């Protein structure tokens, strides 16, 4: 789950990392009020769950509260990178000396947290040349200690007060990463501001991103629920399954991500164009599977392909789900079912009794559904 910038900053702030004075606002009046409260000039930042916001015009500035209100009026409701702007973060505009990147992410290959830092902040870390990035795997058993942070800031070329303060931020950032079950927490840019002169430099998180592991949300009731994706994606997520929208006309359900992808590959090979795919996952029982099929029907495809190789998923459960939808909602388009594996015989029998056919070969089923959808394109 991605958190809005302002929520991520609230969490960083609570953890002792300095953030700019400011607050989120839900309408232009509130924007003007916050600008008056914290003092202009201010930055007005669209709160959307996507990167590259700055370049897309999602960050603007105002020199006084009235200007802030005017700018806010333009921004609210506007579309930014596919998201409608419904909240703005109003912050004191910062005097920037230097911009760094610091982040902690899960490194799947190393099976460890990875501390990432660069002296070239302000742009997406993907655009920073590899040699300007410091990466340091952290032993999750022991955590990130100040000495490691000192080693990293030395590699960034920092000295004096900025070195000390950035090292402190790294230690706190890792704590946030752990405490909030983050997949990624990053501050970009982490800015160094002049403060009141040499030795008084300040280090401030100017932008922040915090993505919390969906699997760990059960132990983070303190966090607001933020739903991403289209309405349909949200609906399927609520059932507990994975759903991806594509731009073709054949709706696809398969069980297992690898099988789902292979099914798309095979459809493509036959010239079919998938409308979406739905991963029925491992071991979904009758009811969620029925709900999932219902979702597929609702996308109004030209045809539907259900491809199940039963392991933890039982073929008879899938058959029951199909029959439930057929009987209760109706399936108005051609449905091709491929059903093998656990409890296959029982599943096939149930479908046959209801006059539905089930294929054993995926090859055959794919050819069939492409034809049913009007042939190769």
């Amino acid at each position, binding site marked *: 789950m991605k958190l809005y910038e302002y929520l991520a900053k609230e969490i960083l702030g609570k953890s002792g990392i300095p953030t700019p004075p400011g607050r989120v606002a839900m309408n232009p009046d509130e924007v003007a009020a916050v600008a008056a409260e914290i003092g202009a000039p201010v930055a007005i930042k669209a709160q959307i769950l996507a990167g590259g916001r700055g370049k897309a015009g999602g960050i603007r500035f105002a020199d006084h509260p009235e200007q802030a209100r005017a700018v806010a009026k333009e921004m609210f409701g506007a579309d930014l990178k596919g998201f409608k702007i419904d909240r703005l973060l109003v912050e004191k505009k910062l005097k920037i000396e230097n911009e760094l990147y610091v982040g902690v992410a899960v490194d799947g290959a190393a099976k460890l947290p990875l501390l990432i830092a660069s002296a070239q902040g302000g742009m997406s870390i993907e655009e920073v040349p590899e040699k300007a990035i410091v990466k340091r795997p952290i032993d999750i058993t022991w955590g990130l200690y100040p000495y490691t942070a000192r080693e990293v800031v030395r590699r960034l070329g920092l000295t004096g007060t900025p070195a000390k303060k950035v090292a402190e931020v790294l230690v706190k950032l890792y704590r946030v990463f752990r405490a909030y079950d983050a997949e990624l927490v990053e501050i970009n840019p982490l800015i160094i501001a002049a403060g009141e002169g040499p030795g008084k430099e300040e280090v401030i998180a100017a932008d922040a991103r915090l993505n919390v*592991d969906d699997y760990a949300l059960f132990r983070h009731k303190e966090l607001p629920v933020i739903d991403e994706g289209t309405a349909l994606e949200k609906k399927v997520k609520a059932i507990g399954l994975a759903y991806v929208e594509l731009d073709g006309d054949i709706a696809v359900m398969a069980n297992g991500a690898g099988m789902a992808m*292979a099914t798309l590959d095979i459809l493509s090979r036959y010239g079919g164009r998938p409308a979406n795919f739905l991963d029925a996952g*491992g071991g979904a029982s009758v009811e969620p599977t029925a709900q999932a099929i219902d979702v597929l029907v609702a996308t109004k495809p030209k045809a539907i392909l259900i491809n199940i190789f039963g392991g933890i998923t039982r073929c008879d459960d899938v058959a029951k789900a199909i029959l439930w939808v057929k009987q209760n909602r109706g399936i108005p388009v051609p449905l091709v079912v491929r059903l093998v594996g656990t409890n296959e015989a029982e599943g096939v029998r149930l479908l046959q009794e209801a006059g539905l056919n089930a294929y054993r070969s995926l090859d055959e089923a794919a050819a069939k559904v492409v034809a049913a959808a009007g042939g190769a394109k």
Partner: protein
Amino acid sequence: MAIYIDEKTKVLVQGITGNQGAFHTKQMLAYGTRVVAGTSPGKGGQEVEGVPVFDTAEEAVEARGANASVIFVPAAFAKDTIFDAIDNGIKTVVAITEGIPVHDAMEIMAFARAHEAVVIGPNTFGVISPGKCKIGIMPNQIYAPGKVGVVARSGTLSYEIAASLTQAGLGQTTVVGMGGDRVVGLSFIDVLKRFQADPETEGVVLIGEIGGRAEEEAAEYIKGMTKPVVAYLAGKAAPPGKRMGHAGAIIERGRGTFDSKVKALEAGGAAVADLPWQVPELLKGRLASAKAGGGETAATRNGNGHGEAGKKKGKK
């Protein structure tokens, strides 16, 4: 021989009293797996499918000599349960559970490393050495004993391919599911090393998918292998930037694309099948030429397998 598990493996089912735990205990017993004990805190003293249930792994190990464990507990309890197994001396843990928080997974792997235990999964279908032992949730009927090692990221896709291997008369030494989560215990290389060292395994099937760098890294290792490797990769038609169900299956910044993986694997000497059901034929070709060519490594061969089966070309 087989890798990770064999006919001597004595299996503890953790979370045996749940629906999935009980169902698959029955399936594993039906397959002939020596399921010797189960755990379920507070339910010690019960039986499931004739298997005694204990409160703790400690008792299960003491009383029944369990030396491998399979995890069916809900995600929130998985870390504690796996720690329980490992701390009580179990060196092979198969974590079926889906939805384990990634921080828990990192801690589990660190704990396993410190205790020199192997974790297969999480979010895996398990591991099976056909005819000897099955630990997992895969269908019983699709495997046969034989000479092929199979390693896969994805469950059902591996069933598809295992079934086609069996149908083609290519039985398996062991089929290993690495698991679909972002942090899992085994890498392709870990498993390939075992297959390379296993005297009974003559060829290997690698079932990968887009995203991450695991297949590219495996390709480097394959260069030094003396056994032929045939790969199938899912996700050719997947659009970049969309997460395809598995945690890793997303193409980001040109990394982990289908083409880069195919290229790397072929450069490493593996053959890459276009369609799942082409794997057996490709492998047969490779096995035949390996027998003819002796112990050369994949890197010294110059066969480029991609499309071989489709184009019906023979070995050069």
